[in-house]
């Protein structure tokens, strides 16, 4: 059985999604329990997979037994095994945290909600694990369709935001498909490793260049790069808080992973960096993204809108750090994918707690939040500190790598943009903390009561805070054992 773990991480949530959809019509109380047990099982198998990769190196799994260029294969290597673990952790925490809010708001549709939740995780895991370009598209669509549905269940503006997301998402996915078509017409293959073997002969071909451009356009739309970010803030902040945690912390990160995957393992760094010569343009682009995202975040009045714009700046961090093209930058980018998933989850979990109690996330309502909800507010502060980059938390380490990479590559504009956005984040978070600690009026006549969110929403937040600090402390181990092997040797 031990050789089947690569497929089990995808299949367990998938099978359980079917069972949950079934159970939703027969015994709705079981749904949440089934979801959590499925996620625990797949987290267990992903951790075992992580240790297998640690011991033996890359694992190739042939689905339906055909060898790779003809059949579909799964490649678990140093890059994706660790991201899979993070995805599973985020999914588990969101599932535990969501059950109260779901019970309250979506009583009879629980089965469908949790089934789509599990299908979302299935799609993301499949995207991470797969070694076939078209299989990636199919799983991308599973993720997107379940994501549209999950986002559509929110307040009364959610359906409109979700429809906008659907248009942009479909354009993005179709551009990606067009890019694969260009690759297929010039190489005749769909397997990543096979294409990577053919591409060095075709370096002069215009078709390959346009394939690269279309794939990247599609992925930029999907990950919410700055000019194409129009769908992101509304979709994340109008949706139900149980789903926005999951969707916001994972979608953009996995799309960034796909970009890294395509450049490192399909188009090859040699072609992408030295042949096309667009890395300088991309770093400048990322700089613009970071600065614009920071300013837009500064102008928001609601917590979730602000967090959505922070996600846009983080996308700029990772994309810019990766396109710096040196080893330090790539290390920082990959480490920041892991850290950012955890940090975003921490912030969104605490905002979900606030919304569960306060029913609103406008900044006006955050008076005396430290007295009312001490645990959630503490989690929020630590998440914010991690976004800013305060040393014991993990955000500091990846930002350090990005800064030193920018300095090494001589991109001082990116360097200063990073510093600048950290300062803006300081202002953003201290504004809320100030609102929560020092509210001037109404202390006497309006006695604030202790009114914390339920325990099932506090525990995931606590675990996430611990994970933030642990990821900070063990970041050296993660880099030496996994990320260093993931980056090819030609990049120095």
């Amino acid at each position, binding site marked *: 059985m031990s050789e*089947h773990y690569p*497929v089990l991480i995808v*299949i367990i949530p*998938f*099978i359980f999604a*079917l069972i949950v*959809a*079934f159970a939703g*019509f027969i015994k709705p109380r079981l749904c949440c329990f089934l979801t959590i047990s499925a996620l625990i099982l797949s987290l267990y198998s992903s951790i075992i997979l992580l240790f297998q990769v640690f011991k033996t190196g890359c694992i190739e*799994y*042939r*689905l*339906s*037994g*055909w060898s790779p*260029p*003809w*059949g*579909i294969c799964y490649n678990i290597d140093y890059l994706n095994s660790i991201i899979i673990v993070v995805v599973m952790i985020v999914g588990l925490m969101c599932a535990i945290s969501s059950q109260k809010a779901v019970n309250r708001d*979506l009583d*009879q*549709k629980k089965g*469908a*909600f949790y*089934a*789509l939740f599990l*299908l979302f995780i*299935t799609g993301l895991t*499949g995207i991470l694990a797969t070694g076939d370009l*078209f*299989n990636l598209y*199919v*799983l991308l*669509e*599973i993720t997107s*369709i*379940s994501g*549209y*549905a*999950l986002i*559509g*269940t929110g307040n009364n503006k959610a*359906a409109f935001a979700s429809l906008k997301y659907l248009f942009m998402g479909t354009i993005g996915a179709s551009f990606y498909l067009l890019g694969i078509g*260009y690759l*297929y*017409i*010039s*190489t*005749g*293959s*769909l397997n990543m490793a096979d294409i990577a073997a053919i591409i060095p002969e075709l370096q002069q*071909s*215009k*078709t390959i260049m*346009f394939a690269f451009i279309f794939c990247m356009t599609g992925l930029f739309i999907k990950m919410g790069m700055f000019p194409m970010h129009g769908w992101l803030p509304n979709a994340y902040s109008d949706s139900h808080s149980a789903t926005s945690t999951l969707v916001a912390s994972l979608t953009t990160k996995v799309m960034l992973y796909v970009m890294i995957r395509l450049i490192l393992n399909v188009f090859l760094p040699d072609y992408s960096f030295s042949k096309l010569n667009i890395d300088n343009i991309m770093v400048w682009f990322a700089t613009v993204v970071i600065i614009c995202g920071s300013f837009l975040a500064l102008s928001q009045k609601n917590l979730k809108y602000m967090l959505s714009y922070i996600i846009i700046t983080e996308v700029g961090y990772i994309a810019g750090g990766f396109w710096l093209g040196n080893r330090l930058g790539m290390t920082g980018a990959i480490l920041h994918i892991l850290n950012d998933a955890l940090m975003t989850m921490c912030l969104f979990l605490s905002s979900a707690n606030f919304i569960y109690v306060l029913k609103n996330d406008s900044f006006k309502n955050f008076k005396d939040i430290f007295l009312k909800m001490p645990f959630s507010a503490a989690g929020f502060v630590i998440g914010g500190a991690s976004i800013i980059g305060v040393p014991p938390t993990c955000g500091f380490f990846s930002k350090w790598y990005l800064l030193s990479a920018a300095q090494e590559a001589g991109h001082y504009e990116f360097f200063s943009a990073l510093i600048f956005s950290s300062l803006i984040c300081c202002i953003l978070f201290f504004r809320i903390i100030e609102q929560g600690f020092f509210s001037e009026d109404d202390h006497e006549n309006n006695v604030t009561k202790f009114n914390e969110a339920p325990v099932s929403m506090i525990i995931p937040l606590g675990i996430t805070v611990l994970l933030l600090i642990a990821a900070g402390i063990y970041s050296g181990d993660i880099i030496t054992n996994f990320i260093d092997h993931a980056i090819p040797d030609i990049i120095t």
Partner: protein
Amino acid sequence: MKIIGIITILLSGSIMIYSTLDFPEWGDPLSPANTHLSVYYIENSMPDTSVPNIVTAILADYRSYDTMFETTVIFAAGLACFLLLRNFRKKKKEYSLYRHIPTGVTLKIKNSADLADDTKLFQRIDSTWVPFDLVTRTASGLIVPFIQIFALYVIAHGHHSPGGGFQGGVIFGAAFILFAISYSLRESLKIISEKTAVILSCVGVMIYAGTGLLCLLFGSNFLNYGSLAQILFTDPVSARSLAILFVEIGVGLAVAGVMIWLYYNISSSGKYNQGL
């Protein structure tokens, strides 16, 4: 907005047409796409799986993992539609409408709690405009069984002719949709209720995934049908052919169920009281 649209499409359109200049010519048998992978499929699909339709062989065997998730996509669409639209709250109506079938007169009856829904002469309807047309009903009643038989033929004959699980499932679902349009949503819900449609689709996807898991239990990779030869008492090649049929049946069930479910939800906007 119009000007922005026109500028965008002119720019990107010229870029895209420029990008086609490097393509191999249309229909060239020697282009890379036609010589690299596809040659293997055309030459080996018959000895490997004994399925004459190469598309079915690739769809359900070489790339069966894609097809499993393709079925899942449509299942997810059904779930999504249900989650977004389904409205369980029932509005209390103080009257109900009945139609006298021979004359077509509609009656509005208050306090109709103890009346039966359907008798030979009277039929319960949901709103005053629901049409009744004997010709359409009779003709569609005549056609629907044939469509269903054709759907089964398409599913079962997918090995030898164009067709397969997905097309057959859609046709099967379309037969029910025709029934629901020409009669009414109320009568089609009596034959396939919402719960039945959902369970049908769940079971369909489960058959596909279950076939894959069975392969895991017999010690080979996921969806490697060759190992099923032990329980089908045949050689691995025929086992693949049989397993493809099995999987196609699952896809057909799932797609038919989801199509019916989607139609119910969209046509009644989630209230299940009146159809198209």
